[in-house]
């Protein structure tokens, strides 16, 4: 029962509390590069999710057989294998999206978020916890990608997942689908997360002070 709670905790940690993008600020290269539409963000998020989950399972299972001197190389081989699988599968199943994402699918290999989870978590924890962690971090990354992609698509072309929102007279905010738009949107979102964090800390402090008084 305690275990159950812990796994859930690991999941929520990745999705929100230690969100890989908004809190840890990891994996920004694919994030900024492909999120000019919500669909691209979703595809990239799912691809990364799959790679992260698969690699976490394998690394967690094999952690006792991998000598620590060569662990990074082994992690990279495992990650690269999954990335190649995703790359070919996408090219076969969804050529249009594959073309949009371009070089950024192979580049998942060097997403520091994924290697970071292998090193920091999957290679030190049980399979069960690693899966929970991968689910959480993957979902957190996916959430960030889709959120960023959605905001940029709404302002940049007036659509969400390809559905027109404002009618034909919409004036697109060109900058939003260009790289600067990615930086600006991400900046505003980080601002929001930090603001929430600060507010929470303030309240915690206040509560602690009141506790001290009572």
């Amino acid at each position, binding site marked *: 029962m305690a275990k159950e709670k812990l796994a859930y905790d690991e999941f929520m940690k990745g999705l929100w509390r230690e969100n890989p993008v908004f809190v840890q600020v990891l994996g920004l290269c694919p994030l900024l590069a492909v999120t000019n539409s919500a669909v691209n963000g979703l595809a990239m998020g799912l691809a990364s999710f799959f790679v992260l989950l698969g690699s976490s399972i394998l690394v967690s299972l094999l952690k006792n057989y991998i000598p620590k001197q060569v662990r990074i190389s*082994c992690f990279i081989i495992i990650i690269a294998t999954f990335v190649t699988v995703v790359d070919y*599968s996408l090219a*076969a199943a969804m050529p249009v999206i594959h073309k949009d994402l371009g070089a950024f699918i192979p580049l998942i290999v060097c997403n520091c978020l994924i290697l970071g989870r292998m090193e920091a978590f999957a290679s030190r924890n049980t399979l069960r916890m690693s899966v929970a962690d991968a689910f959480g971090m993957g979902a957190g990354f996916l959430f960030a990608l889709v959120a960023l992609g959605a905001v940029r698509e709404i302002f940049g072309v007036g659509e969400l997942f390809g559905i027109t929102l404002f009618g034909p007279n919409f004036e697109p905010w060109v900058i939003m689908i260009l790289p600067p738009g990615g930086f600006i949107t991400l900046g505003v979102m980080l601002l929001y997360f930090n603001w929430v964090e600060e507010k929470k800390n303030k309240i915690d402090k206040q509560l602690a002070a009141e506790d001290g008084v009572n």
Partner: protein
Amino acid sequence: MSEEKIEQDTGSEEPSPHRLIGTLAVAGLLSGIIIIAIYLVTFETIKENKARELRESVFRVLPDATKMQKLLLKEGKLVVSYKEEKGEEPIYAGYDDNDKFAGYAIPSDGPGFADTISVLYGYRPADRKVIGMWILASRETPGLGDKIYKDAAFVANFDDLAIDPPIVATKKGKSKPNEIDAITGATISSVAVAKIINKGNAYWVSKLPEPGNEPAYEVPAAHTASSRAVDTQAP
């Protein structure tokens, strides 16, 4: 801290170099096997996707065409080719339902506003006209430069366009048969497309056979595994 724990689990202080090399070799081998497997599984589909994309582009720039074949320049002559050749510079010939020649689809590329623009355009040698244009790849500014393929009015500029003298993009409304209307706010991209087509013409037009002597459509042979293998129109 936890690293130490792992070491205790494996029960060794310092693994031998053989073990390290062995681990990496096994990992590499397994990874290789998986990659080859997925490559084999998806190979046909990916190839088909690419062939379909090419076919669709060719038919888009050659309105009458329903069949196509790849042509390569060999010793100054255009010959039909089924194989992928290294460094090939193909053009494509389109044919209508009655195997009548419908025009060439010529790929060409050149610098745009951002990065290279790859263009495929249809060319009819009988009246020396461009009869269609399609952008294969570009990274032009979304909302502005990307109108070179998103703006139907701009693409329609190329449906009936004389190539002599060379194509000119103008901002004042086209008045001559060799002029196209540049897109407001994306003049550079518009001019780039015109230049790219002129470049393709400069290279290819003199090398094409006399009108009427185009290579005939060859019924695809069963053994050809090229892009035409999935062409279902053959009788």
